[in-house]
């Protein structure tokens, strides 16, 4: 038996550690954080966990340019660890979004936990590892890794959503999110199994090759292998749930309303970005050849999302629910971009989605940062009436929030304008005029929602209510770290709004990585 073992020469895959820094830093950092705080209880209280999280995320951000120079030398894409993941501009972009989201959310969470009388490094540990999952998902060249990334990302967020141990609403939100999330990932898995059966591989590049060889022989999956088709449909369901696209959006308003607001900020930015990144990676790299087959489904999801999201957002009085529906609209917009990419405008379409991904992460982080600040102790002030007269009591917060809301509405000179414009231009390029028109109408409708909130903030209220509103506004204790976070997001909104090409052509590089280097 021993002899048998000795005979085998195991080909251990080479691991290029130097390009894995973000993953290593975030995951190992999470483990170290929980170890450190369990050994020294003094580190549990106070800002140490938040500081460590910010340092880790910041360090990961710093490594990105170094990794990029390596990747560029390697031709724009490095297959790592037996080609299970690909490190390229797209991966790095999503990593950047994850790290930024981590930093902002930690800034918010530190103060939030203190006001709520909660403690614990576990929040940060879960955030760190969840972000790792998101990065894996964006980088994956293997459906196993995609799935594991998805699960790491999701399970941590299920827990985070339920982690406000003293609010039953938070727990119910967590449970609902968990049940529907687990169902969707089970369906997702079933889809992977079918694709494995149809193509014999789990590697995205191999799947693409296999499909392409079948395609060139004149066989379309649509008619020849419904197994592959059913698999793709189930993958779309799984991803659709993660990015909360209609008709898989049912959980979104409830969970956004119930979960702790900083966690919602993470869900809206990081989880959605990672889900969309995974969707892009899988569908463009592996199934790009048969875009014709999945295009109609994506189109239908896109239209449903923008219409349902915009229509439902109108009637909401709770701002978190309102933004939940608006996040569905945004998911719809990203899908419009993907639809455009699938129908001819591959370059502009993909690029528009990549940019939208980034833009939405920035805007939603800022918006929910503001909500965290305004929500106050007990996370209660989320009804529209709490915003009456905010411009007078807290002009700083009100104006920054107004900028972010205008950006979400698609106001020119903000990042949101460029995001929406690019998507619609891409849709027009792909000659999808109907979809483009529907998206534009929905955008206008959704704009009313944001404007309503802005008007409420700047509204001069009636005298008898004013006293009350002033009083509640005056109590608002704005933490410096939270304001800083809000400021970063608003600044980013404006910077990329005024100079959409700021910081180099990441989005073009990321698009190239997805489309050409597969």
């Amino acid at each position, binding site marked *: 038996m021993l002899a048998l073992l000795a005979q085998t020469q195991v080909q251990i895959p080479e691991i290029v550690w130097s390009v894995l820094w973000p993953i290593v830093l975030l995951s190992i950092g999470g483990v170290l954080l929980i170890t450190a705080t369990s050994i020294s209880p003094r580190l549990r209280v106070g800002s140490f966990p938040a500081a460590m999280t910010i340092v880790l995320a910041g360090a990961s951000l710093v490594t990105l340019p170094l990794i990029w120079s390596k990747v560029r030398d390697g031709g724009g894409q490095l297959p790592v660890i037996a080609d299970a993941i690909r490190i390229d501009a797209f991966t790095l972009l999503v990593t950047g979004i994850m790290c930024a989201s981590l930093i902002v959310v930690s800034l918010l969470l530190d103060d939030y936990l203190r006001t709520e009388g909660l403690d614990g490094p576990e929040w940060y540990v879960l955030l760190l590892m969840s972000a790792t999952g998101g990065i894996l998902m964006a980088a994956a060249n293997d459906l*196993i890794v995609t*799935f*594991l990334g998805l699960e790491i990302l999701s399970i941590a967020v299920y827990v985070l959503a339920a982690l406000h141990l003293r609010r*039953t609403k938070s*727990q119910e939100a967590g449970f609902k999110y968990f049940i529907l999330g*687990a*169902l969707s990932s*089970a369906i997702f898995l079933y889809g992977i*199994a079918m694709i494995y*059966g149809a193509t014999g591989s789990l590697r995205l590049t191999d799947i693409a090759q296999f499909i392409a060889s079948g395609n060139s022989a004149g066989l379309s999956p649509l008619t020849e292998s419904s197994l592959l088709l059913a698999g793709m449909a189930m993958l779309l369901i799984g991803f659709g749930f993660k990015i909360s696209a209609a008709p898989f959006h049912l959980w979104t308003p409830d969970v956004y309303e119930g979960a702790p607001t900083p966690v919602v900020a993470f869900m809206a930015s990081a989880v959605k970005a990672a889900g969309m990144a995974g969707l892009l990676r899988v569908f463009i790299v592996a199934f790009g050849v048969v875009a014709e087959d999945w295009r109609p489904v994506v189109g239908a999801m896109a239209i449903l999302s923008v219409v349902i999201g915009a229509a439902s957002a109108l009637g909401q009085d709770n701002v978190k629910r309102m933004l939940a529906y608006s996040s569905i609209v945004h998911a719809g917009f990203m899908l419009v971009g993907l639809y455009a990419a699938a129908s001819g405008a591959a370059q502009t379409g993909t690029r528009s989605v990549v940019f939208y991904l980034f833009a939405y992460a920035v805007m939603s982080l800022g918006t929910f940062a503001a909500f965290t600040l305004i929500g106050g102790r007990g996370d209660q002030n989320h009804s529209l009436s709490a915003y009456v007269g905010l411009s007078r009591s807290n002009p700083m917060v009100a104006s920054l929030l107004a900028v972010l809301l205008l950006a979400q509405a698609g106001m020119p000179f903000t990042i949101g304008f460029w995001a929406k414009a690019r998507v619609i231009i891409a849709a027009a390029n792909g000659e999808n005029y109907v979809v483009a028109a529907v998206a534009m109408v929905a955008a206008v409708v959704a704009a009313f929602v944001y404007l309503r909130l802005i008007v409420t903030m700047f509204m001069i209220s009636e005298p008898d209510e004013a006293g009350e509103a002033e009083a509640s506004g005056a109590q608002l204790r704005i933490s410096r770290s939270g304001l800083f976070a809000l400021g970063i997001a608003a600044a980013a909104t404006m910077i990329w709004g005024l100079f959409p090409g700021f910081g180099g052509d990441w989005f073009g590089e990321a698009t190239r990585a997805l489309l050409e280097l597969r």
Partner: protein
Amino acid sequence: MLLNQFLGLAAILFCIGVYGVLTRRNGVMVLMSIELILNAVNINLVAFGAYQGDVGGQVFALFVIAVAAAEVGVGLAIVLLIYRNRRSIDVSEADLLQG
């Protein structure tokens, strides 16, 4: 090779599971139904793996089992948490109803 039969079995089990998730109202039972779906996935993976002559399917099934364990752990923790708190709510609600 009984490939199609295996896949049919998995499909039926999958649907039983989905039905369970959507109709059962007991949190624990919903989790059990999700386990059924994951088992359907595993049947599929192993059957495809044997059909393709590839161990990849079995390896993936191992990962699925690990994920299932993690999911159940977290899910049951949330159920416990809710039950613990909800029970105290039920009491107060009962008072209100009597009044």
